[in-house]
């Protein structure tokens, strides 16, 4: 059966602001899945709370919308239960780097075969623009009239410090490149972290299309960690593309000794197990 991009549409009217980067991110995500020949019932999307989380209604598939910052553990559970489903977690920079930062760190380390889309609009937008770890230091935001006090987290530097198997960066204003990045991320067998620099015309007016267009520099797929680190630490340019990919790192499930040779998925293995052997002396 032919899969069409409209298969992924729902009849819910988006509540995002005009010009929100989420429109393009969803378009790229749907396009990538169609090009990968995946139907909505073969995909699990997990969301948390936030503007991106409100996208749970706006794309078809099996979807879980959980608590703030918890899109990753929901995705991990869905993946481990049934690897036949493609699992994609969507999370904002706020939830990801605040409540959910432990999940990000351990998911990179564990290298579960899922894809993570970090919607980085540099603020908590749904609650009307509070600071996050990626908001530029000194920027005036709600509840911080004199500007943000603390320093920032550079997502690229953080992820690359954890020896990831895949880290890419895209831009919500470039659907063609973002589609390709998401396709590569889904195909990659391991934890694919995709940071998406997202336009937020309501609360982050400074980081607009002109800002990004003047700084973005596209790269081809890179597998040199030193190069990757220099890309993400560059103060003048914003590199996009597959910043780092290491296919030699095995994914979590492949390393499980007790799952070797098993053809079934855990979701189909729910049955009584005898614990007699554990109790026997």
């Amino acid at each position, binding site marked *: 059966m032919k899969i069409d991009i409209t298969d992924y549409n*729902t009849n819910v009217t988006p509540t995002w602001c005009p010009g929100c980067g989420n429109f393009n991110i969803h378009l790229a995500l749907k396009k990538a899945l169609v090009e990968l020949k995946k139907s*909505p*019932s*073969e995909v699990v999307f997990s969301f948390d709370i936030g503007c991106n989380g409100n996208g749970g*209604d706006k794309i078809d598939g*099996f*979807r879980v*919308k959980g608590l703030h910052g918890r899109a990753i553990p929901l995705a991990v559970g869905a993946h481990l239960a049934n690897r*036949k*489903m493609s699992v994609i977690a969507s999370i904002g920079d706020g939830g990801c780097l605040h409540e959910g930062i432990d999940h990000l760190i351990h998911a990179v380390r564990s290298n579960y075969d899922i894809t993570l889309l970090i919607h980085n609009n540099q603020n908590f937008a749904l609650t009307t623009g509070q600071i996050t770890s990626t908001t530029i230091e000194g920027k005036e935001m709600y509840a911080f009239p004199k500007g943000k006090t603390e320093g920032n987290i550079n997502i690229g530097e953080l992820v690359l410090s954890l020896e990831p198997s895949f880290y890419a960066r895209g831009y919500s204003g470039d659907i063609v490149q973002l589609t390709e990045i998401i396709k590569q991320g889904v195909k990659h067998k391991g934890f694919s972290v995709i940071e998406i620099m997202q336009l937020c015309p309501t609360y982050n007016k400074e980081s607009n299309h002109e800002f990004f267009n003047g700084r973005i520099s596209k790269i081809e797929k890179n597998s040199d960690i030193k190069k990757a680190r220099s890309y993400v630490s560059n103060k003048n340019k914003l590199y996009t593309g597959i910043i780092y990919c290491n296919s030699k790192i095995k994914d979590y499930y492949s390393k499980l000794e007790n799952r070797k040779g098993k053809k079934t998925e855990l979701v189909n293995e729910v049955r009584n197990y005898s614990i007699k052997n554990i109790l026997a002396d």
Partner: protein
Amino acid sequence: MSVSDATDAYELIQDAFNIAEEYQISVTLLTEKQISESLFNIKTLPQPKKIKRGLVKNGQKRYEITSNGISPRWIPQKGKKTYLSNSDEHDEYGISTEDEKEIVEMSEKRRRKMDTLKKKLPQPKYYGDEKPTLVFVGMGSTKNVVLDAMPLTKKRLGYLHYQYIYPLKFEKILELNKQGVKIVLIENNQEGGFGKLIKEEADFYIPNTLRKYDGRPFFVDDILEYIKK
């Protein structure tokens, strides 16, 4: 739910999973350091319980409004009807809603589910004298000490043991009170949370309490000393 010993733990964890899946709720199974670090001698474990998953093969409305409050649940799989499991209030398909009527209907459906569950849950277990003069009411490891104290006293002792804490079945407590039995709440904590729950659910206040909160579990002597008074 609350476990009291090894056999209890083995049985209740199975019930916990069955309830969680059939009723689509999160279940909390309480245990205690006293239980998990104690040694129990048991001849054999009971037969494993039947796994109940409450699944249907496929459906249309994942959060359908039903009379018993339980909606059909199916596991995500290729070819099946997709749905959204939403932490936000939602309609029968899982789609977020701010419609007052839909919110009330969905909220009441969940309430009905708890009523359905409450009807299915067993009554608290009663141990001890058939015509007691004093009955302890408690949960968890307190059961073990009260049962150990029973043969050591001539008092007509009883123990009403709660495995299922919430939704709370309180009828037995009211019945004992009607019979003129002295009811004593036994709790291994300072605040007496279980007593507060009984008050909230049954509108019945138990004035007599035996509480211990010195960082140690109850000992048989604590029970014997209390009933001597």
